[in-house]
């Protein structure tokens, strides 16, 4: 626990950890918002969420290798992942939309295993990153360092979130998505083609993840098998924020990023993932407790 003493005695380190955490937290929030969208609109929990993120990351890496600046990968990954999501919907997902949610969890778990393995075969099992080559920014006389790409990724994440909100509010498809989320049957009665809405929603979610992944590949690292933690983070954020609450998702995402960074420093990085998964358990227990209190169940 010496590390706690370091944090207390050197607030600059704390600040550095928190700022870096907040920056990655925005990316967590992006993936989480996609999960909330799919969960809310079609009642599916997508375990392959993290694999979508990784796929987006590999788009950036492949483009980087091809000599194209990986920043251009953000729209490309989004478009490509939209197509993949759309295709997966028509192959598998539409069959589990009206079923027990556990079926959708298992089915998307299967998809995630397939994707992991395909990525492993195609891109190799190494930790990789796309170099955006932007350098670092120094603050407070060099005490706090932030990679510029992280700042840019944060900014782009915010832009994407705003664009998504505008899309859901203004466009016809966005309104159809929101209507379907509120009441699928009523939406169908009113002539909305909910099947197409679901397909678009799933594609949109994949696109969000793709863009998020491209940013992750530039600002951090990716690997075929580290998708699941992104899924779990998304789930956790959605549970804390609730469905359809963008502000909550952003706040929870940023908070998670910061908490994770500090925990990684205090406990040692080998326990950072353990922290994430235990935090999930804590969050769920807390949710259960809160629910029991609000319903005021004695049971």
């Amino acid at each position, binding site marked *: 626990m010496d590390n706690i003493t370091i944090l207390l005695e050197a607030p600059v380190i704390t600040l550095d950890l928190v700022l870096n955490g907040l920056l990655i937290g925005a990316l967590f929030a992006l993936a989480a918002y996609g999960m909330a969208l799919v969960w809310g609109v079609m009642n599916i929990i997508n375990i392959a969420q993290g694999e979508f993120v990784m796929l987006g990351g590999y788009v950036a890496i492949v483009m980087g290798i091809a000599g194209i600046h990986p920043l251009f990968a953000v729209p490309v990954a989004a478009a490509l992942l939209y197509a993949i999501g759309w295709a997966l919907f028509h192959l598998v997902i539409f069959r589990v939309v009206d079923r027990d949610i556990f079926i959708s969890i298992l089915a998307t778990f299967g998809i995630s295993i397939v994707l992991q393995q395909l990525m492993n075969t195609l891109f190799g099992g190494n930790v990789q990153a796309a170099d955006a080559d932007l350098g670092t920014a120094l603050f407070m006389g060099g005490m706090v360092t932030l990679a510029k790409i992280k700042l840019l990724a944060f900014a782009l994440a915010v832009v994407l979130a705003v664009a998504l909100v505008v899309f859901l509010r203004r466009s016809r498809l966005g309104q159809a998505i929101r209507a379907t989320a509120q009441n699928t049957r009523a939406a169908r009665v009113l002539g909305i083609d909910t099947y197409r809405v679901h397909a678009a929603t799933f594609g949109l979610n994949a696109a969000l993840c793709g863009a998020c992944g491209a940013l992750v590949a530039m600002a951090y690292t990716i690997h075929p098998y580290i998708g699941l933690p992104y899924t779990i983070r998304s789930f956790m954020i959605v549970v804390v924020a609730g469905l359809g609450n963008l502000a909550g998702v952003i706040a929870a995402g940023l908070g998670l990023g910061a908490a994770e960074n500090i925990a990684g420093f205090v406990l040692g990085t080998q326990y950072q993932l353990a922290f994430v998964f235990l935090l999930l358990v804590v969050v769920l227990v807390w949710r259960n407790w809160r629910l029991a209190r609000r*319903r*005021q*169940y*004695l*049971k």
Partner: protein
Amino acid sequence: MTAMLEVKNVSKSFGAVRANESISLEVHEGRIVGLIGPNGSGKTTLFSSIVGAHPVDEGSIRFQGREISRLRVADIARLGLIRTFQQTRIYGGMTCVENMLISASQRGSSLLDLFHIRSAARGRQAEDLLAFVGLHAKRHLRADSLSFGQQKLLEFAMALMNEPKMLMLDEPTAGINPILIDGLIDRLKQANAVFGVTLFVIEHNMRVIMSLAEHIYCLAHGELLAEGPPEEIRNDRRVIDAYLGAH
């Protein structure tokens, strides 16, 4: 004589909604008591409060002289106070007989008692009660393959299997074929007369409750509006205005 169930000044709110406001009522042993009131008047909330599904904000609930407002659902059920649900609840994946067997009384039994092979006597009791509600021929069918009305009868039989001292029925005739309602009323009366089960019944069907209950309480807007024997309630101006007039 003290009442079997004694509800005193019970209040319960959900957020800003006052579902029950200082309600007091009594159910005496061996009687059939009705609880009526327009939709949203707080009848089911009161039932849920009594069986411990949620704690009350204020007031006391006594069953056989014992304060139960702070007990948990299973513990209250084990005292012999059983309720049925408005939306019928049965164990759909199990056969009718299995539904009955697991409904046998848990009174005074511990976890270890569950590790006994099912007894033949219980099996006979289950079959007899299924025959009593007219489901004997279907006893080996999965409960979710029964019609809604039959599921309601099954739930009633399950409640009797529990050998309750008092049975609280939430709209026992709702959704049941009108032709079968008279038979159900008969069985409710028999359960009361033969098995000695005290009944406390929420009912929307006026004809049913008037012919069934000996004493009726009427709720409106979460408050107790009137009480008395059926004839009195039938002619009570306030009840007619609040309830019958609402139609």
